[in-house]
Each structure stands twice: as structure tokens, then as C-alpha cells.
């Protein structure tokens, strides 16, 4: 299949789900300390569990070949922490600011600009040496030179470990859900199915599972395009920057991930137009500067760490990469600290 087409289709599906489900890891993590709201965090959890079991089964049947990112602990800790700080300042994670471009939010456009420019400078510009040295100096591999995962570090078969974690988490979750008596996990209870899909907000479980389904399809389609890894965001934007900088050069082509990015914006735009939620929203100049700076921190952090919240958290954690797990924890730490300093502490004073 044509990689342009599969990239666009995956992107459009992803963008549609992101917009309808309001899926954003910045909100998911930040709202825990800010509003004691766990709704989006539960969506993230559902998506990760589905991907954990799904990728493990797909790998064991030969449909995909797992490709966990390496553990580069210094780069993972520093880069992802800065990414976490940046996303709270920018008002959205890498996927959040990308889908909000399709909703017409100008603050998201400036954030994406910062992410792309700083990402490019860290990948191929004056910050590249710093990033490469930090990654090389703090890289730890397995005894036979492979990338460390929770499975090979513990010496347990990947499929067995993935299914154990999946089963234990699902059981705990059911017990907790029963105790709390949740009812609106799927979304609106009134209205026709069309209204539920295209007009009203989705429940956290619907959103989480559909994000997971997009991730499951993304892996084999991406691999077929010659890129053996599931979803990502930052590298896709950097690919677009490279093409823009060298537009007339036919040798510089947009990769699969860059087509996913274009698809996300299209999918989100379509969803927002149908729901009547598209509007150009221009915040004050100060806010545009703020989201641009936040985006710059995200771009630098993501490339230094080897992935953003999608590359590491959504795609790497389900493959049990130790580097991605460390990066994920570091993103959360950066986001919590920044949310506390920006929003919680000023209220107490």
C-alpha cells in the first residue's frame, strides 16, 4: 500500500479520535494535581493497556516485530522532564497541540511552531551534538547489545509479562470502578448513535480504547512503509520542517510520520467542523509567546529524550522499553512540578 495513503488514513483516524475524545496527556497528567480530575488519565491507561496486550500478541503471531527504544537514562531523564515542563507552559502535549491546530486554535499553531523549530535544531542543528553526546554517554544495553525492556531485564518472556500486567491491571480497575460506581464511561446516554459519535463528548473508555485501536493499526502500516515503529509526533513535524527548508529538492520527501501529522490536522478539522467546534481563536500576544516557548522546550526535550508523549508513552511504554518508561515518568514529574508552580501555588498565596 502507498505509504502516503496509509499515513494519511492513520492520521485522519487519530486526529478524529483526538478531537472527539479531547485526548491530551498534558490535561491527563496536569489535572491530577490541578483539579483532582482523573478522566483523561483513565483514557491514557485504557489505551496503554490495550496496546500492551495487542502489540505483544501481534508480535508473537509475527504481524509486527517489536522495536523498543534504547535506554539512554541521562537523555531520557533530562529531555523528558523538560518536555513535561514545556507541555504545561504550551497548554498541550505534542498530540494535543497538533489536533488543536485543526480546531483553529492559534495558540496551538505557535506551540507547534516552537516544537518543530526547536526539534529540528536539536535533531540536525546546533543542539545536535549536545543531544547525541548525552544519549551516547548514558546508553545502557543488554548483555548481547539489545535494547532494555522490562521483560528482558527481568528475564521473563515478553508476551507472558505483557499479559500478566494486562490481567492484573484490568482486575484492579474493575474492582475500583465497582467501588466508585462509574456509569458514564462510554459517553452520552441520550441521543442517536450519530449524535453520540459526531456531536457529544465521548466517555473516557471510548476515547482510550479507540486511541489504542489507532495505535494497533499504526504499527504494521508504519512498518510496511519502512519505519518499524508505531505512532509518533515530533519526528513527523521535524520531517515537515526539513521539507519546507528544502522544498524544491525532489530527494527530500515527506516520510510516513509526516503524512500522519497532516492527517491528524485534517481528521481533527473534519471532526470539529461536523461538531460545529471549529473557530479561529486568537489569544493575546503574551499567550502566543508563552505557547511558542513551551513548544520550544517540548521540541528540545522530545528530541533529546528520543521521543515525545506519543513516541515514548503511547508507543514505547506498551513495548515495555525501559527508556520509554523512564521518559514517561520524567514527563509526568516535569508536568506536575510546573503545574504546581504555575497554578497551584499562586492560588495558595
Amino acid at each position, binding site marked *: 500500500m502507498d505509504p502516503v495513503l496509509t499515513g494519511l488514513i492513520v492520521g485522519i483516524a487519530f486526529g478524529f479520535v483526538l478531537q472527539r475524545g*479531547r485526548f*491530551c496527556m*498534558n*490535561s491527563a497528567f*496536569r*489535572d491530577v494535581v*490541578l*483539579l*483532582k*480530575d482523573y*478522566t483523561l488519565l483513565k483514557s491514557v491507561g485504557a489505551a496503554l493497556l490495550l496496546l500492551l496486550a495487542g502489540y505483544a500478541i501481534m508480535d508473537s503471531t509475527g504481524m509486527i516485530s517489536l522495536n523498543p527504544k534504547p535506554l539512554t537514562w541521562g537523555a531520557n531523564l533530562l529531555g523528558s522532564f523538560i518536555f513535561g515542563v514545556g507541555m504545561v507552559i504550551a*497548554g*498541550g502535549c505534542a498530540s*494535543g497541540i497538533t489536533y488543536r491546530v485543526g*480546531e483553529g*486554535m492559534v*495558540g*496551538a499553531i505557535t506551540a507547534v511552531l516552537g516544537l518543530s523549530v526547536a526539534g529540528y535544531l536539536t535533531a540536525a542543528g546546533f543542539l545536535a551534538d549536545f543531544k547525541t553526546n548525552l544519549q551516547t554517554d548514558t546508553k545502557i544495553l543488554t548483555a548481547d547489545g539489545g535494547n532494555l525492556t522490562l521483560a528482558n531485564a527481568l528475564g521473563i518472556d515478553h508476551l507472558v509479562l505483557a499479559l500478566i500486567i494486562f490481567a492484573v491491571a484490568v482486575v484492579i480497575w474493575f474492582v475500583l470502578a465497582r467501588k466508585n460506581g462509574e456509569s458514564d464511561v462510554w459517553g452520552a446516554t441520550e441521543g442517536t448513535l450519530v449524535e453520540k459519535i459526531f456531536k457529544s*463528548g465521548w466517555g473516557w473508555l471510548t476515547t482510550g480504547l479507540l486511541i489504542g485501536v489507532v495505535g494497533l493499526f499504526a504499527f504494521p502500516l508504519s512498518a510496511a512503509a519502512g519505519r518499524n515503529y508505531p505512532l509518533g509526533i515530533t519526528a513527523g513535524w521535524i520531517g515537515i520542517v526539513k521539507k519546507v527548508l528544502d522544498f524544491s529538492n525532489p530527494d527530500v520527501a515527506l516520510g510516513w510520520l509526516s503524512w500522519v501529522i497532516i492527517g491528524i490536522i485534517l481528521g481533527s478539522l473534519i471532526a*470539529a467542523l461536523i*461538531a*460545529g*467546534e*471549529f*473557530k479561529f*481563536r*486568537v*489569544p*493575546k500576544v503574551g*499567550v502566543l509567546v508563552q*505557547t511558542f516557548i513551551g513548544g520550544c522546550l517540548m521540541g528540545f526535550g522530545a528530541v533529546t529524550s528520543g521521543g515525545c508523549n506519543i513516541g515514548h508513552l503511547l508507543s514505547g511504554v506498551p513495548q515495555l522499553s525501559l527508556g520509554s518508561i523512564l521518559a514517561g515518568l520524567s514527563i509526568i514529574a516535569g508536568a506536575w512540578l510546573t503545574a504546581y508552580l504555575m*497554578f497551584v501555588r499562586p*492560588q495558595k498565596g
Partner: protein
Amino acid sequence: MTDVTATKTLDVRGKICPYPDMDTMTTLKKMEKGEVLEVLLDYPLSVERIPRNLKKQKHKLLESEKLDGPDHRMLIEAYGLK
């Protein structure tokens, strides 16, 4: 439309995440019990998140009305946390 008159109006249109929520919550915190806050907002995530969090603070959502496009108008009765 209900015939409640708002004591105060807060326009958070164009604001980025999470300011629509934060501004609404901090304004409500400073209001007397029974006073009504009118909030104008256009951020879809907050349109769904604010009602969830009002419950926790015991403020009462009197009305959430859809205007043009993503614009919404909420009327919220303050619980009186002052």
C-alpha cells in the same frame, strides 16, 4: 434561557488550556453563596470538564447553553466558599 440574572460575567473565550477552568473556579471561590456567574467559553474540553469539577466544589450548574460554533454560555450558582 432561564430568567436568572448573572451577578458577574466572565469571558474566557480564546484562552488556552487550563485557564478557562482555572479562571472559572477562582472567580466562583470569591463569590457569595447564591450569586450567579455567567461564563462565556469556546474551548470544547473545558465545556465538558467544568461541569464535572463544579460538582466537586458543590457549585451548581444552572444552565449550559450552546451558542454559535464552539461558543458556550454557562450560568453557575456559587456555593459560597468565601
